[in-house]
């Protein structure tokens, strides 16, 4: 059975969309695709809109296939995918807020990103509306004997991004968590309209600063697809090198922070030292501690010499044993494992249904890593093997990170040993086109959809962070856990607020 292709087989794809096909569909086909989503035959990776059209990025898990379905909305409405496929709820609430198209049958019609504080409404519509009054946000009703609510945020107690969590607890046990996000909405999509490729690259690089290399790479891939250019092999390998350094720094930091939230500071301290070494190595290689703006459309802006690469190779060799000491400390401390094992369990069926990427999905048995399935270059040449765990708890998410740190160290060594020579950048011609770019951030796959005009300016760019599909699952994973374990669960997910709020 090949639902994706069989549904769309009779159609011819739009000519200007690369590398995956985009099909313009009618309402009947849209509804049948919705049934495929509801039945689990397809995954919904993204849903976003232009003023005249709504787009759904659809993924077929096996064999891997991807396509964009676009439904024209001449009268400003479309059948909500969320009516049958709940992972679409927040996408469609955001489409209402930002573009003003009406998803018919949307089960939750409360605003999402629009808190009623902007000087306009529907900022991405052809004609934005006048400012609305800030209305009280109605949280979902909760009824029952002895329940109490704990509101947290938007400003949290630690050094983390802002969001609001509304806990309903029976004694110490969480019976419901409801998230309210959108606090750090910066208007990124509206800001991107009309910008040139260089400016747009700098903005997309900061959709979520912790995954800046992944964002830059996904954007570069979208531009290269739209403009029909191929980056040189050396650039692709250097991009992978920077991406794996980024993954190392973030995963090591997360492992430490998770242990810290279980009050085990020693591992946090050692992870902090290792992470700083990775940041400094990145700075030495690229001139920036996060390698921001080093991956650009057409290639990379670095061309390290043999000595710099040799220094990095030595660091990769030293980090492994130091990291294994930390892993041993984690694995040998029963009081720590007592906090992480069995805590915040995410049901594998939910992870599949929401197409959860990154450690959230891979710790709950969803064998998806875009480095293997969708964007294999140059990983296919490096013999990449994705991590996978089944237990779905905090401990499993720690172990996925541990496995991925080990794999990143191996990949970095392999890249440094086999790095091809040649140019690191090619010229990107200015031309009209649409492109879709994907890169595997430490958090999961980031996706950039892009439409360029003939002068190479952005008509529409939609950056989709993996957190869109992970945040709702945190609400499910915390159910039945004690309130005091929420920081642990939240850190083990480590969803992005900025990447989600846009």
């Amino acid at each position, binding site marked *: 059975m090949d639902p994706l292709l069989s549904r769309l087989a009779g159609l011819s794809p739009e000519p200007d969309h690369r590398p995956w096909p985009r099909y313009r569909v009618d309402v009947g086909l849209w509804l049948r695709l919705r049934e495929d989503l509801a039945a689990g035959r397809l995954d919904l990776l993204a849903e976003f809109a232009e003023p005249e059209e709504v787009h759904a990025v659809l993924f077929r898990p096996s064999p891997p296939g991807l396509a964009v379905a676009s439904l024209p909305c001449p009268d400003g409405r479309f059948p909500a995918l969320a009516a049958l496929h709940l992972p679409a709820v927040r996408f469609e609430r955001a489409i209402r807020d930002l573009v003003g198209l009406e998803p018919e049958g949307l089960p939750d019609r409360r605003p999402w990103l629009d*808190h009623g*504080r*902007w*000087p*306009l409404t529907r*900022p991405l519509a052809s004609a934005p509306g006048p400012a609305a009054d800030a209305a009280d946000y109605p949280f979902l009703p909760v009824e029952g004997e002895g329940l109490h609510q704990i509101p947290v945020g*938007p*400003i949290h*107690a*630690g*050094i*983390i*991004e*802002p969001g609001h969590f509304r806990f309903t607890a029976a004694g110490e046990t969480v019976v419901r968590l409801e998230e309210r996000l*959108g*606090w*750090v*909405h*910066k*208007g*990124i999509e*509206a*800001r991107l309209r009309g910008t040139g490729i260089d*400016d747009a690259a*700098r*903005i997309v690089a*900061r*959709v*979520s*600063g*912790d995954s*800046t290399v992944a964002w830059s790479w996904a954007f570069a891939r979208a531009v290269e697809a739209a403009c029909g250019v191929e980056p040189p092999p050396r650039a692709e390998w250097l991009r992978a090198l920077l991406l794996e350094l980024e993954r190392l720094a973030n995963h090591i*930091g997360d492992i430490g922070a998770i242990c810290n939230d279980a009050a085990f500071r*020693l591992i946090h*301290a*050692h992870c*902090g*030292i290792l*992470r*700083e070494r990775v*940041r400094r190595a990145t700075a030495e290689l690229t001139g920036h*501690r*996060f390698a*921001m703006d080093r991956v650009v459309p057409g290639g990379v802006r670095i061309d390290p010499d043999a000595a710099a690469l040799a220094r990095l190779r030595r660091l990769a060799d030293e980090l492994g044993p130091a990291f294994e*000491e*930390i892993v*041993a*400390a984690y694995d*040998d*401390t029963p009081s720590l494992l007592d906090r992480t094992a069995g805590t915040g369990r995410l049901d594998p069926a939910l992870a599949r249904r929401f197409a959860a990427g990154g450690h959230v999905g891979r710790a709950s048995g969803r064998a998806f890593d875009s480095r293997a399935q969708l964007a294999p270059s140059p990983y296919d040449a490096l013999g990449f093997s994705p991590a996978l765990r089944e237990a779905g708890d905090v401990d499993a998410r720690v172990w996925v990170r541990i496995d991925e740190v080990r794999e990143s160290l191996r990949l970095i060594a392999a890249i440094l040993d086999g790095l091809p020579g040649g140019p690191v950048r090619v010229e990107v011609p200015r031309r009209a086109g649409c492109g879709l770019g994907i890169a595997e951030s430490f958090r999961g796959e980031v996706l950039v959809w892009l439409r360029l005009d003939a002068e190479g300016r952005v008509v529409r760019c939609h950056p989709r962070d993996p957190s869109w599909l992970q945040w709702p699952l945190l609400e499910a994973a915390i159910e039945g856990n004690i309130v005091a374990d929420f920081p642990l669960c939240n850190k083990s997910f480590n969803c*992005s*607020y*900025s990447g989600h709020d846009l």
Partner: protein
Amino acid sequence: MLRLYLRSLFAPPVSEPPPEPDPRALDELARALAQRARHRLGRSLAIRQVDAGSCNGCELEIHALDSAVYALERHGIRFVASPKHADVLLVTGPVTRNMAFALQRAFDCTPPPRWVVAAGDCACGCGVFAPSYALAGEDGAVERVIPVDLHIRGCPPTPLDLLRGLLALLEAADGRIAPAAGVPPRTG
């Protein structure tokens, strides 16, 4: 695991020598600090960090400050959970319209004498997200919402940039610098 414990107990500290305070920050602060306030703090600063719209890049570098390598606490600087316990609000931005009221409330809860540090290009009003309908005053500068005493530029500022700025704040609060006149604020 024993090795890790022993090494943690007996290895020399990994913390590096601190940088000199940023002289430009000292100039800016000298104007901002009243003589009266200086003697209140001694050599201790309690910081409440507020992310008012950042991409999370600045937060990562602020986290790095707390690591053993930079060991912020040896300077008497520590992060606190409540603005009511804070001397300093360390604000990253751009300040979004959705967060402006929360930032204002955090400021109102911070007892005087208090200082506000705008950390990162976005908080200083010159980040990549401006201009935008969704940012306070369209550019998201922290000044659009609350008064700012010190600007630390960078995208993101490195831990050393942040440390230089905070050490300048500490020195200024300690009364070791005299108020300077006529130095224009470092913005844009």
